[in-house]
């Protein structure tokens, strides 16, 4: 197979504000095109600052926002043609989202397993309760959890890291081909962040799922993605292989972003005046703890 999993063709989205007398148009996304191939799972990072249109683009891929112009095709199906619960379900069977705030991803009044079982029931076609539980448990194991840890729990009884894992497990239960993750680790504590990031790598390598990773963070994008797209004010200004683009950015905006990344190392020891104890600082710590 060498078709296209996702084909985004010249997609634009404009928002209008105001009424009859004053009308203001904001171009959130401006003629963006890119493709993801079938059978070649990859992580594509969409990078941009606030107002770059990256979230609007992600929403259009998730079909929760309709483009003003242009087309989006998933596995050959035009997203604009999706109507009715049957085709909507078929679409969600292929694409699933992960959100930014793990504490908001589940209804605080409901137990989290509700969403796991619901997803399983809706997308597997079997209503068998016992196999559903087993499938949920299996999905949770893929993200390093088990049904025992999660069952009967409300969202506030789990940590942010755990909830984000549950959110990923829920997405996996639909057996999607594509996951759209909008800033999935920006609200996760530093000590837990990398395990979630690594999980995305595992999904790509072991389960063959393509991932669209929407973020403002160049460093994690460099760490996990294969390809990146830099967006500015709705347009893609630079795209290509993650390593090439980020190591040697060409577009001035990408260079500016790259420059502004604050490295977790003291680049100019003279700037920090208090103590004289320093030496050459290696990028990685001298002794790894794990």
């Amino acid at each position, binding site marked *: 197979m060498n078709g296209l999993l996702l084909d985004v063709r010249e997609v634009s989205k404009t928002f209008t504000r105001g009424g009859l007398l004053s009308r203001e148009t904001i171009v959130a996304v401006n003629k963006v095109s890119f493709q993801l191939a079938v059978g070649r799972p990859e992580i594509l990072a969409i990078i941009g*600052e*606030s107002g770059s249109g990256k979230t609007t683009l992600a929403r259009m891929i998730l079909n929760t926002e309709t483009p003003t112009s242009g087309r989006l095709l998933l596995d050959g199906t035009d997203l604009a043609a999706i109507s009715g619960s049957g085709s909507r379900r078929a679409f969600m069977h292929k694409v699933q989202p992960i959100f930014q705030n793990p504490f908001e991803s589940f209804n605080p009044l409901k137990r989290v397993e509700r969403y796991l079982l619901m997803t399983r029931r809706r997308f597997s076609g079997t209503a068998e309760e016992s196999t559903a539980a087993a499938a949920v448990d299996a999905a949770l194991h893929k993200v390093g959890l088990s049904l025992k840890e999660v069952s009967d729990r409300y969202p506030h009884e789990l*940590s*942010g*890291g*755990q909830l984000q894992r549950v959110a990923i497990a829920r997405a996996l239960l639909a057996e999607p081909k594509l996951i759209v993750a909008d800033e999935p680790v920006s609200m996760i*504590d*530093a*000590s*837990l*962040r*990398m*395990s*979630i*990031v*690594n999980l995305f790598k595992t999904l790509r390598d072991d389960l063959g799922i393509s991932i669209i990773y929407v973020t*403002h963070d*160049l*460093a*994690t994008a*460099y*760490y996990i993605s294969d390809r990146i797209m830099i967006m500015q004010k709705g347009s893609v200004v630079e795209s290509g292989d993650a*390593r090439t683009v*980020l*190591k040697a950015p060409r577009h001035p905006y990408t260079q*500016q*972003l*790259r*420059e*502004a*990344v*604050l*490295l*977790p*190392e*003291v*680049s100019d*020891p003279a700037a*920090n*005046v*208090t*103590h004289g*104890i*320093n*030496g050459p*600082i290696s*990028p*990685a*710590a*001298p*002794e*790894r*703890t*794990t």
Partner: protein
Amino acid sequence: MHADAEQPQRDQDAQPLLSVRDLQAYYQTSHAGVRRGIRAVDGVSFAVRRGEIYGLAGESSSGKTTLIKSIAGAIRPPLEIVGGSMEFAFLPGYGGLHRAPPAELERIRWRHLSYIMQGSMNVLNPVRRVRSSFVDFAYPHIGGSRRRFEQQVIAHLARVKLDPSVLAAFPHELSGGMRQRAALALATICRPGFIIADEPTTALDVVVQKEVLGMLRGIQRETGSSVLFVTHDMGVHAHITDRLAIMYAGRLVEEAATTEIFGNPLHPYTRHLISSLPRIGDDAPRQGLGGAPPNLADPPSGCRFHPRCPLAREICRREIPVMGESAPGHRVACFAVNQGERA
């Protein structure tokens, strides 16, 4: 006594501007007759010297927000100061803002101590022009004619590259970066000796963030203020702070010059924080830390990091490690690191 340990500094540094001693701040709730305490800050000691930017790093449940609230005197139930003191050099003898009489507070506020808040976007009164915020906050301290005051404000705004027309604008008419710069100008116009900055750039885009940090650094150099700079972002700490303390589950685990922390981290938690951060150009795999930050209503015994620590040993489960000086100016609370001096 730890202030004595840092004696090798020059004389003017010997007297810190803020010294926090063995601070304990708990959230005490009494629900249906059952008293519960969340030990958000549990025995924290450190000192901020004159003219330095002192960083405080920690994740969401580390207690750093509670620590800031306590130092700022914003203590409202259920938060309670259970023990310890927080002494400012310009407010001697009270052991904390929360114990100072209103007249004293009035004397020091904005003149000696100002704040840049986490939600800096929303610190300006939305229904009044920016000018009125400057008048309300700073005019009582600066005085003189209104015209001279306005000129002073305009000159100060130029330091953060803001046009005088900003004064006539309403906050919603400014971009996020402009608002943040206006807030920075507002916090520094009285040239306070001490500035508490709580995640001041977290909500900003990276390019603007770097710019604002540079401005803060510039003004701080010029005025010689001390800054207590709190953020979870290690990159920001590396960029701006002089010394840095790492907080975990309500306690400090390590403190040293920022160069030293990044060059020679000693505590296993600090090491993890630094080594796990991905860098552009470095393809080495990074690992997350197992387990989860502890529940502060029921923290682990002994060292609070021991359930997640790769170096944990028997003593870590039983005893609380104290901050020991491993090198001049480098303190760390870990049995594995300090065992030479300790056991």
